């Protein structure tokens, strides 16, 4: 999967979990916080989402491993490529998945780390959001185009508060790397009570980033038939939905690392609890319109994040 010749210039940081000679970068890329662990967690998160949602609607709901069944079934179906769609139609889901899979490698649970990896995280998460929009545009159907444009407008909406709150955390921990932030929190206690406004701003962005109610405007099934996904089928759709499910896990654990970090097993538990919170928010809220989400992010959340940034800088 990953190029064998991993670029030598990455400084291999101190290993938390046991010293595993020089095979450690491959383990951290392929197994622990990397591909295997992330995909298992992604399927678990998605399965939990459907089961808890059903249980809250007093239905029995599907088995926990349902996303796994859906993934295999979608892979086995034949994938139709509309002739009006461009070359990016096939590459958009692959790039989206690849960009989302990079983030967990930088997690402080035994993963690789280097000086400025918080910037890489911000950039890479945006790439996957843009790839969703590109997929929508390249699918050649009006619904896909509307879904793509909505995805881009929503990206602008939540980008400002996201960047500000992350910078606030970085300045507080005086280090732009996740390991550094985690270390600062282990020393000085969790950030969420030291930076409450930035925490609120970041947590409110997550539904928009993942595409959960009340901000899942791009994939609004009822209005534009699934938005960017409208023309996708077969393995392309499987990759796109898997990329989405990985994004569930990645963004939630990013929130835990930035604000609620104590040690690695507490990281897993808080991740599940936070995910429960977001499922609950999805269940009780309807889908707002694009302009309403724009107002919500720019006015309220932007100012909250700014307040905290100023508080930290002074």
């Amino acid at each position, binding site marked *: 999967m990953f190029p064998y010749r991993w670029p030598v210039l990455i400084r291999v940081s101190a290993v938390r979990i046991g010293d595993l000679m020089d095979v450690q970068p491959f383990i951290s890329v392929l197994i622990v916080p990397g591909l295997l662990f992330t995909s298992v967690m992604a399927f678990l998160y998605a399965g939990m989402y459907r089961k808890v949602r059903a249980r809250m609607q007093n239905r029995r709901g599907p088995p926990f491993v349902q996303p796994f*069944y859906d993934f295999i079934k979608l892979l086995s179906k034949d994938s139709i490529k509309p002739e009006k769609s461009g070359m990016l139609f096939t590459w958009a889901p692959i790039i989206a998945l690849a960009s989302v899979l990079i983030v967990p490698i930088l997690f402080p649970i035994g993963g690789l780390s280097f000086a400025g990896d918080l910037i890489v995280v911000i950039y890479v998460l945006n790439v996957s959001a843009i790839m969703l929009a590109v997929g929508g545009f390249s699918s050649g159907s009006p619904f896909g185009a509307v879904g793509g444009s909505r995805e881009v407008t929503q990206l602008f909406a939540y980008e400002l508060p996201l960047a500000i709150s992350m910078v606030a955390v970085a300045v507080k921990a005086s280090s732009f790397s996740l390991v550094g932030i985690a270390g600062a929190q282990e020393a000085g206690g969790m950030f969420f009570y030291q930076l409450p406004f930035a925490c609120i701003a970041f947590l409110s962005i997550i539904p928009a980033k993942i595409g959960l109610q009340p901000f899942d405007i791009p994939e609004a099934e009822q209005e534009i038939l699934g938005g960017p996904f*409208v023309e996708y089928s077969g393995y392309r759709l499987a990759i796109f939905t898997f990329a989405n499910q990985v994004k569930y896990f990645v963004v939630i654990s990013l929130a835990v690392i930035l604000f609620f970090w104590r040690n690695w097993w507490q990281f897993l538990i808080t991740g599940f609890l936070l995910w429960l919170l977001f499922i609950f928010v999805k269940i009780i809220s309807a889908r707002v319109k694009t302009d309403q989400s724009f107002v919500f992010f720019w006015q309220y959340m932007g100012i909250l994040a700014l307040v905290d940034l100023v508080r930290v800088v002074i």
Partner: protein
Amino acid sequence: MFEKVVNYCRKKSPWLLHVSCGSCNNCDIEVLAALAPRFDVERFGGVLKPNPRHTDILVVTGIMTLKMTNVLKRLYEQTPDPKAVVAIGSCAITKGIFAETYASYGPADAVVPVDAYIPGCPPRPQAILHGVVTALNALWGG
């Protein structure tokens, strides 16, 4: 062995597309009632999907009216293989009480190949679930 696993996964996650071609919307509401908590279709992994690209099973109701028939044909062609068609209600099976009408091309199997028939006017949601599940077992059960 690989084939068994894939067939098992296909059986466990049927994504449905509901196409109403001139029905009295009682069968359509019973199909929606099959989603409701009392007869939850999601227990079998079933989800109602918005467009044909994402679906495996076409749930068809109603007599094939003049305007709706070629829409159904196009939807059938847009659905990727492997797919199945389930005809719900006596209208879709034998045109029911509207047998001598001028405004129909014939029951569902005159338009698309049908894999399972669920009689009733309207068939109860339990009957719809039973029909869909038996269709799944027949097609990919093994």
